[in-house]
């Protein structure tokens, strides 16, 4: 055991550091900020789902916000109408959304990449109006207000014992989200490096060869849709918990785009990518809307456009910059930098045989 700890590769230590950081830092930031970070982690979970679909199985979705909406409404209806404990509804919402995603994946098999993109986009477009229809169930345009979050006594006591202050509901939501993120990222990490994930990656890299190796292409493609939707469903459900209120406007088309941008920016087909992507997708529009107006060198028309159009412009600019300078996202950039450093340290003797992956974030 000790031996294993001592020989663990550096990235395992990095994981430990990151987990400890996310566990500890809500105690030193304000409750409001903890609430913001919960939202960033919620996006990270949804982006991880999207990453399993796009990054690992090679299918594009421009409509994952629709699956978040489904999960959120599943939870809200179960909690509001059927008086279930909200925490219990989260995994149920995830499973239901997963099933919907799986069913959506079946006809999606018949579509080429372009038409799949269009079909998922259409799903995101029609979702808000679909939600509005069954007014009795979904509350129509009014949406559903959820019962206030109750922090369990055990969590309160534990938090007070460790930090000396009382736990706010935002902090509680943060920790629930963090726990889900931890488990779901761990599951994804296992999935992609074992048999089922290997099959998905094989399909992404070449369907003919994958089929010749005995991989059931349609089976794994729909499976990827299902798992991906399950992640989005849980993220949607957590979003309801975090905001306390959901309506069709909570899930605009731009949410789906936000998820895709986050997935690409963080780095597709990587496990840390969605975490970075989630943080990025949540904070970038907020930060840039505050920062841009303070910059005197930016022409005033551009400032006005950015402030008015908000996220869309910022996302667009960042996406273009990344495509040029870091096609493999933030994780790709970091890995390339790390490899360059290691090569230099190892010296010229090894350079010949030191094969550096051109696409290092496969797992």
């Amino acid at each position: 055991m000790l031996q294993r700890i001592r020989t663990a590769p550096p990235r395992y230590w990095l994981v430990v550091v990151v987990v400890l950081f996310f566990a500890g830092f809500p105690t030193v930031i304000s409750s409001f900020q903890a609430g913001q970070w919960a939202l960033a982690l919620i996006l990270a979970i949804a982006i991880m789902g999207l990453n399993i679909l796009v990054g690992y199985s090679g299918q594009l979705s421009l409509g994952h916000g629709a699956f978040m909406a489904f999960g959120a409404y599943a939870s809200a209806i179960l909690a509001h109408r059927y008086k279930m404990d909200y925490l219990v509804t989260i995994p149920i919402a995830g499973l239901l959304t997963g099933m919907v995603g799986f069913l959506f994946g079946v006809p999606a098999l018949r579509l080429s990449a372009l038409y799949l993109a269009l079909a998922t986009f259409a799903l995101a477009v029609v979702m808000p109006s679909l939600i509005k229809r069954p007014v009795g169930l979904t509350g129509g345009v009014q949406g559903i207000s959820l019962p206030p979050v109750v922090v369990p006594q055990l969590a309160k006591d534990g938090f007070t014992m460790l930090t000396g202050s009382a736990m706010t509901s935002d902090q509680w939501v943060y920790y629930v989200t963090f726990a889900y993120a931890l488990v779901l990222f761990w599951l994804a990490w296992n999935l992609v490096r074992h048999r089922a994930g290997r099959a998905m990656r094989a399909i992404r890299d070449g369907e003919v060869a994958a089929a010749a190796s005995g991989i059931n292409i349609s089976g794994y493609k729909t499976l990827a849709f299902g798992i991906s939707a399950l992640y989005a469903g849980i993220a949607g459900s957590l979003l309801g918990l975090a905001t306390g209120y959901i309506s069709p406007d909570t899930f605009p088309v731009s949410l789906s785009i936000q998820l895709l941008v986050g997935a690409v920016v963080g780095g597709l087909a990587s496990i840390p990518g969605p975490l970075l992507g989630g943080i990025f997708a949540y904070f970038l529009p907020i930060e840039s809307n505050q920062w841009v107006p303070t910059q005197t060198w930016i022409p005033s028309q551009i400032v006005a456009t950015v402030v008015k159009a908000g996220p869309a412009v910022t996302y667009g600019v960042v996406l273009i910059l990344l495509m040029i300078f870091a096609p493999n996202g933030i994780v790709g950039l970091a890995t390339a930098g790390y490899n360059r450093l290691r090569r230099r340290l190892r010296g010229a003797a090894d350079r010949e045989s030191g094969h550096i992956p051109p696409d290092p974030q496969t797992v």
Partner: protein
Amino acid sequence: MALLEVRELAVSFGGVVALDHVSFSVEADQVVGLIGPNGAGKTTLFNIITRVYKPGAGAVLFDGTPVTRLAPHEVIRHGVARTFQNLALFRSMTVLDNVMVGDHIRTRSGWLASSVPMPAAMNAESASRKRALEVLDFVGLAARASHPVATLPFGTQKRVELARALVSKPRLLLLDEPAGGISHEEVDGMSRLLRRVHTELGVTMLLVEHHMGFVMGISDRVVVLDFGKKIAEGNPSEVQRNPAVIEAYLGAA
């Protein structure tokens, strides 16, 4: 009964007749060479056997099973593995992962067992890794296991593809130009390797190849295609003397 039986197989693409009622068979434990000028229909024949294409007419029986009724991913489960003329490796994956994909049918853990890491699935995973490493050792690439496959030289990638096909323990191996595009020294190495696949692993082979010395040296029988038609069949020396074959090759050259 023959291990593989191709009966009156025909297919055309638009106006091009790629295969014109071709029949032949491969007995168990034989090496059969399949030769013919470019565009003769050799790759198309492989693509029909592995269900990439549907035949227009005719049948393919493998050990009595009509292959043309199987789904593409079921073919290997019946014991038919293949390599590709222009390499079809999983380019973003490592050598080991590529070969482990070839082992897919010998393990059965599903997505949940993969994600939650169930002990049974993890044992299957290490057994699979062990088999993959053994096969990599057999083709002389054990030291390359953790390398990203795309960074390796072309000739080495061809051996990775061979390893990926072998790890499934096929009864019939379809090899599409295993020595195509590789250097002279590598051609000899590949030839020795394929002999060992035949003698040590006992795999029956249908071999498409342009290096005549290579095919004639290793094959028990040779089938010759030209413009989708079978123009000759027999043992290597018969085929080499066959006027129609000489004509086809001279005409093509």
